[in-house]
Structures are given as C-alpha cells and as structure tokens.
C-alpha cells in the first residue's frame, strides 16, 4: 500500500504515528499532532469545505505550548478608550485563496468581531472588533487555531506614505496614458498622410489639440521629475532628473513656439512618450521597494517592547515599556532589551550600548549607574528604577534614529548616485556642444538632434542597475523566509569563502530538553530541579529554556544573581550559594572537577561552593536540512567550521553528525571573536551564522552575519540577514541567490553602459528622432528593471 500523505500539510506521514481525522466520512492520516489539532478545529467549526476548495497544501503546524505564546503582550499594547477597534494583522502561512476564505469565515464567527477582511495581494488582514467583548489575544489564538500565524502591526506612517505614493503613481500614469494616446493618434495620422497636402487650418487645429493634451501630462504626470530636478539643482548635485526635465521642458516649449508661430516641428508625442515610459520604469522600481519595505516591517513591528515591572505586592509582571512611569522598578534579565532609561538599584552587569553609541565594548554597570533604554543587558539580572520617560528618553531617540536609518540612502545607492552626477554633467556638456555645433553650421534640425542626444543618453538604466537587483533579490528571499536587512550583504556573501556556525540554536533547534539527571550530592532529584529552574528563570540563554518549560509551582526566592556570559550563573537560595552552568564554569567556581566526557548531550551542572550536586544532560534537536546544507557548502568549495562554547564531546558528536571537520569547543565569546579574526587574517571573507547573546560581537565582526529563527534580539540587531523559517537549506538559497544577484548586476551595468555609449554617436549624427530616443531610453531602463525582476521568479533550489 502506498503511504498516504498528511491530509493537512501534504508531507509524508512518519511511521508508527496514527493521527487521524474524519473528513466526509473517511478517515484521513495526519503527520503530527499540530496538523491534527488544526484539521479538527477546521472541521468542527463547519468549515470542512476548505479542504475541497483549496489548491495547495497548508503549511505544517507545530503544537506550540501555551506558555511560549505571549499574545497577552499585544493586549497591553492595544488598550483603547473607544469600544470599536480597528486592528491590522500580518498573516503567515496563506498558501491559496481557500486559506483566506477559511480565515474570514472562522474569524467572523468570533463574538465581538464585526468584520475581518484579508487583502489578497498583501496578505494583511484588517479587523474591526468590539474591545469590550473580544481581546486581541483571542483573535490571534483563533487565527492560530485554524493553522496560521498572525502578528498585529501598526499601519505606520511609512506604510501610509507608500500607499499614497502608489496611488499617485497610478493616477499619474493614467493621465499620461490617456492623454498620450490622443496625442499619438493625431501624430500617427500626420506621419502617415504627411503635412503637404493638408489644409493649413486643420494642421494648426491638430497641433493645438496635441498641445491641449500635453499640458496635463506636463503639469500633473511629469511633476515629480521637475520637483526632483529642482531639488538636485539647488544642491548643485544634478541627478538623472535634470536631463529628463530639461528634455521634457525643452521639447514642450520648442513645440509650443512652433505651434504659436505655425511653422517648424512639434514634439508633443515625444514629451508624452518620454513621461509614460519613465513613469512606468519608476513605478516598477517603486514596487520592488514596496516589497522590501513590507518585508522589513514585519521584523520591526512583530512584538511590542515589554518590561517586567514590580507591582504593589512586590511581584514582577509584564507591562508595555511605553506605559512605564518615572520611579517604577523593573527587572531586566540577561539578554533582554533595557525598556527605559533607568538607574540600577541592585545587581551589577555589563551592557551593550553599541546601538546608541556605536561602541562595541560592553560597558560595566553597578548600583547607581544609568542604563540607557534600548541598549542590551548582556551579563546578569539587574533591578533598576526608571528615571526618564517620554520624548526625552533614549528609547524615543532610538526610534528616531531607526527612522533616520531607514530614510538614509544605503552606501550602494549613494555610490550609484555619485556616478550619475558625473554622467549627467557629461551629458549636458555633450548636448550643449552638439547644439552649438549644429547652430554654427546651420544644420536644419539642430534642435531635434540635441534633444535626441539629451534623451538617449539619460543614465536611468545605469542608476537602476544595482538598486533594482538588490530589491528584487530581497523580496524573492523574503518569500522564502529570509529577511535581508543590508542589501550590500548579498554582494559580499557571493564572494565569501568561509562559513562559521554556532552550535546551540543555530545548527540545532535550540529547544532544549532535560533527558537525564544524575544526582551526586545530598539533594534529591526534584530539589535539584527546583533550584535549577529558579536560577534559570533569570537567564535568556537557549539552554535555560529546558528548565523553563515546566513552570514550577514552588518558587524559591533567589538573590545576588550573577550571570557569566554564556557560561552559567550563580545565586543565593535559602542562604546557600548555588552555581549552575557549564563544566568549566563550575570547575572554576566550586573548585572541583567534573567528569562529563561520557555524556552525549550538553551537561548543565548544579553545584554549591564545595561539591557538585547534580548533572543535567540536555539534548537538542538538529535542525532540518543541516547535513544537506553542510554537504552542499563543502562541495561548492567553501570552508565550514563550528565554533561553540559547549564542551568537547557534544560538539564533536554534532560535528560528526552533520559532517563538519573543523570544530572548536569550550570557547568563550572572546575566544570566538579571536578565532574569527584569525580566519579573517588570512584574507578570507567570513560569514557567521549564529543566534545567541554570546554571538552578537562575533556577528558584528564577521563580513556577513546571518541569524536564525529564535535568535535573541541582540543577535538580530547585529546581523545582516535573518532566516525566519526552520529549514537551514535556506542558507543555501541565500548563497545561490547572492551569486545570481551579482551576475544580474553585472549584466545590468554592461547593458546600460553599452546602450548609452552605443546610442550616443548615432544620436549625434542625427539618425534618431526625439520620440525614438525617448523610447530607447525607457526601454533600456525597462530591460534593466525586468532583468532584475527575474530574480523574483528564479526556481527554488
């Protein structure tokens, strides 16, 4: 019997599982409890016809433990005074139109939701709901129930601006097209019949009609070109809008003069054609930019910044950072973002302030030091009192900084622009010379020749060559779950020759489980676990999650918590000092030796000052696609190595399993940095793939940094590329696409230069009519844009 694929997601059903769902009287096989739960809730809600409507399988669902979902944070963020609330959501996992049907039907049933509509094109939903009846977290969990992910997002100013821009483009193109059509119609008639046999009154009439239709094109459609050209001229840095505007205005006023005097040539059709094609090229460029913005937006708005605030009863609860008031006391875990400008009242730590100050060295903080909101706490837990909120606080300064960074042109755009400036001066010079030469030698159509020269040499294609390729590559990658935050990273990536991986959370899933517990001291197992769990509450290290999964009912108060970056932590419980962490950390702090070589997993050791109490063996699951990816990288001639802070035997075990030959274990963050620098010293370009707090400096140091799902905020902040999916084969895709992108950029530049240089002499010799020049220039830009667009449709590898 051939095996039936999972009814929900279409993936093969593993052996020895029997998840089944009844659909239309038949029992269908399911691959995992996640898919089963989703399919059940779809069918139970009377939405079974989803399965007959859909044209593609749904993404596989994983059961997410409720404890890991922090939807409640969003409720805090969305407290409104009014009853009816409108919220925008980003929905993940939509594969076909039936998904949208399913979501709309399912959500409309939720009491309090008055409307739920999804935009097919953008995959975004807008919800109108009654805040007294339904909470945002309930809406989110309803979406999750049928197998999708939803994140609220704030339809920010930028998005509004882009929407306005898009509507502006469509309106301008429509006016240019409708009017241009009329002008072309008249002009083609004149071309075909010739002007000789025509009634002069009719000819004059037709010219005035053409003029009438060109005016709106000039005043409305071409306005952005004039505005940009004016801005450029004021700064004495002419971009490509200057020759464009000169061409349009020159052609129009020369035609107007001919019309008024009723003699000579008119170029109304050239004006219209020029504007139409230019707008088209700009609109396509705008669309690629729009995709790029929409993809980066997801990251920045996915989750609100929260803080652990002490309430009246002395307990800490999660609140929204923006609701903090002066003198509130907050707990800041290691690895977390500092929610507001505050003053340390207990504990000491080190803080990474590079986002604010650009300084990569961690800054030590003790009682009384000022913490800057938005910087990262990287060493140990501290308690702090909020000292500044609102407009003056550093956090709002950061938002402004981020906005500015978004608005600023990246280096490669600036490079292209600088090039264009030189080019534009050249064009104006050549056009001037052509005109002067024609005038002096009394060439009859000197004006139309110089107009052609001006238009045909416009460096639009040249300045579009690089940015369009980057934006197209970024949006193609985004659709595969990869977010590129720095376009130029792709360029470097293509020429990289060594890839360094972190182990925990990068090659492995980072979802740690305690598989064994060996008791060595006088404590029993549950006591040891309780102590370990309480200590790990204060750590954001991936290994700590193994202890956090079960929320222990008995919470012991911990004091004097100290966090040793990446190695372990210590604290006092019931007057007894405990240490929890890696082998080397324990050996240093308790002065005993521990034998862990026989263990396969990562050992986490609990000790007091004198003796080892317990060894927890923690196992981690290798991410999907890792061995294939490593094999692919090695076969394509790249160096691969593994740097880990874990102990030798577990690193060796993993390296063997995935096929990495070069690996180092027991490294501190500083050692990792040294190793990376020693590889870079030989002149190789290094890509670093990592996730944890301790990887942040290494990620920042590498030529290209990639962070993976579940990476800490600190790691995300310092990386160029974010991988959102779980499949590590995405790294392969990024590499493949980066070399294709480089190839496309080279093609674009070659084509643009070839066109501009080739067309110039022909135009100077007077073989090109102005409207043909307009067509040529626009087609060359379109070729570049469409060539870049190919990146979006490349086959998945």
């Amino acid at each position, binding site marked *: 019997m051939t095996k039936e694929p999972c009814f929900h997601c279409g993936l093969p059903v593993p052996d020895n599982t029997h998840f089944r769902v009844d659909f239309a009287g038949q029992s269908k096989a399911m691959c995992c409890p996640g898919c089963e739960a989703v399919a059940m809730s779809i069918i139970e809600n009377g939405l079974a016809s989803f399965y007959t409507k859909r044209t593609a399988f749904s993404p596989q669902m994983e059961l997410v433990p409720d404890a890991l979902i922090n939807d409640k944070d969003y409720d805090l963020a969305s407290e409104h005074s009014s009853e009816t609330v409108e919220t925008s959501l980003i929905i993940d996992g939509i594969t076909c139109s039936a998904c949208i049907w399913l979501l709309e039907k399912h959500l409309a049933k939720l009491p309090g939701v008055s409307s739920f509509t999804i*935009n*097919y*094109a953008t995959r975004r939903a807008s919800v109108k709901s009654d805040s007294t009846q339904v909470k945002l977290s309930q809406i989110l969990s309803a979406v999750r129930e049928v197998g999708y992910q939803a994140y609220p997002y704030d339809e920010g100013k930028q998005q509004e601006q882009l929407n306005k821009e898009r*509507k502006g483009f469509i309106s301008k193109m*429509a006016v240019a097209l409708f009017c241009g059509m*009329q002008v072309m119609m008249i002009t083609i008639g004149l071309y075909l019949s010739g002007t000789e046999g025509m009634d002069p009154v009719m000819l004059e009439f037709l010219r005035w*009609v053409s003029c009438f239709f060109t005016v709106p094109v000039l005043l409305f459609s071409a306005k952005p070109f004039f505005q940009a050209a004016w801005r450029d001229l004021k700064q004495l840095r002419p971009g490509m809008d200057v020759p464009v505007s000169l061409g349009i205005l020159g052609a129009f006023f020369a035609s107007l003069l001919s019309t008024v005097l009723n003699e000579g040539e008119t170029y109304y059709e050239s004006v219209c054609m020029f504007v139409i094609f230019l707008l088209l090229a700009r609109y396509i460029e705008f669309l690629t930019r729009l995709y790029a913005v929409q993809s980066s937006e997801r990251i920045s708005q996915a989750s609100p910044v929260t803080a652990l605030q002490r309430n009246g009863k002395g307990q800490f609860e999660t609140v929204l950072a923006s609701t903090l008031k002066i003198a509130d006391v907050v707990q800041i875990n290691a690895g977390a973002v500092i929610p507001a400008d505050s003053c340390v009242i207990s504990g000491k730590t080190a803080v990474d302030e590079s986002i604010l100050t650009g300084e990569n060295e961690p800054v030590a903080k003790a009682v009384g030091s000022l913490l800057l909101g938005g910087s990262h706490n990287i060493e140990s837990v501290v308690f702090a009192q909020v000292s500044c909120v609102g407009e003056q606080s550093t956090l709002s300064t950061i938002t402004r900084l981020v906005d500015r960074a978004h608005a600023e042109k990246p280096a490669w755009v600036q490079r292209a622009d600088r090039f264009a400036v030189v080019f534009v001066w050249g064009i104006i010079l050549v056009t001037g010379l052509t005109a002067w030469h024609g005038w002096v030698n009394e060439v009859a159509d000197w004006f139309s020749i110089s107009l052609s020269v001006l238009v045909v040499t416009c460096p639009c294609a040249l300045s579009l060559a690089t940015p369009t390729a980057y934006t197209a590559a970024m949006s193609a990658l985004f659709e595969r779950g990869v977010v590129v935050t720095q376009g130029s990273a792709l360029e470097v990536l293509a020429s990289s020759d060594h890839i360094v991986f972190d182990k925990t959370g990068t090659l492995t899933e980072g979802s740690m489980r305690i598989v064994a517990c060996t008791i060595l001291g006088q404590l029993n197992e549950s006591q040891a676990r309780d102590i370990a769990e309480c200590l790990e509450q204060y750590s954001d290290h991936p290994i700590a999650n193994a202890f956090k999964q079960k929320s222990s009912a008995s919470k012991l108060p911990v004091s004097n918590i100290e966090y040793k970056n990446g190695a372990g932590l210590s604290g006092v419980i019931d007057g007894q000092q405990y240490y929890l962490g890696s082998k080397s950390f324990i050996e240093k702090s308790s002065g005993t030796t521990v034998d862990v070589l026989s263990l396969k997993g990562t050992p986490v050791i609990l000790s007091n000052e004198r003796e080892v109490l317990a060894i927890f063996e923690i196992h981690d699951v290798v991410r999907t696609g890792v061995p294939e990816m490593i094999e692919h990288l090695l076969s394509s001639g790249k160096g691969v190595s593994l740097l880990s802070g874990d102990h030798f035997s577990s690193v060796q075990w993993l390296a063997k399993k995935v096929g990495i030959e070069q690996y180092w274990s027991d490294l501190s963050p500083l050692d990792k940095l040294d190793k990376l620098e020693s590889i870079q010293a030989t002149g190789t370009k290094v890509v670093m793939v990592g996730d944890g707090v301790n990887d942040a400096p290494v990620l920042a140091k590498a030529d290209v940094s990639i962070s993976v799902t579940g990476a800490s905020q600190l790691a995300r902040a310092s990386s160029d590329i974010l991988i959102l999916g779980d499949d590590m084969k995405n790294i392969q895709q990024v590499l493949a696409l980066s070399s294709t992108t480089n190839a496309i950029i080279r093609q674009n530049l070659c084509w643009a230069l070839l066109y501009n240089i080739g067309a110039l002499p022909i135009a100077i010799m007077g073989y090109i009519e102005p409207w043909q020049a307009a067509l040529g220039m626009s087609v060359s830009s379109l070729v570049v844009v469409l060539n870049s667009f190919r990146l979006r449709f490349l086959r998945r590898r």
Partner: protein
Amino acid sequence: MDSLYFLIPVSALLVVVIIYIFLWAVRSGQFDDLEGPAHRILDEEELDVTQQQAEEDSEK
C-alpha cells in the same frame, strides 16, 4: 473632414470624463486589492444557513 472639428473636441471631453472617473476610482481604493474580488464572488454562495439568517436580521 470638417466633422473632425466637432469629433476631436468631443473625444477630448470624453478623455476628461474618463480621467476624472479613473482618478476617483484610484482615490477611493478600488485598486487596493486586485485579486480578492475574483475569489470572493465564488465564496458567497456557501454562506451557511445561520449566518444568512444573521445577515437578514441585521438588514431588517
């Protein structure tokens, strides 16, 4: 040929009207979702009975 003196202004008028309508359509968001309505028309008939009832009630 004299008819052109009448026909061309008429076409000009038509263009003005068409542009006006098109700009209205863009501004009122008719082009915001170009794929959705094509699918939505197929979904409508499968409204289940209770929901239909609810909609009728709300119309009253």
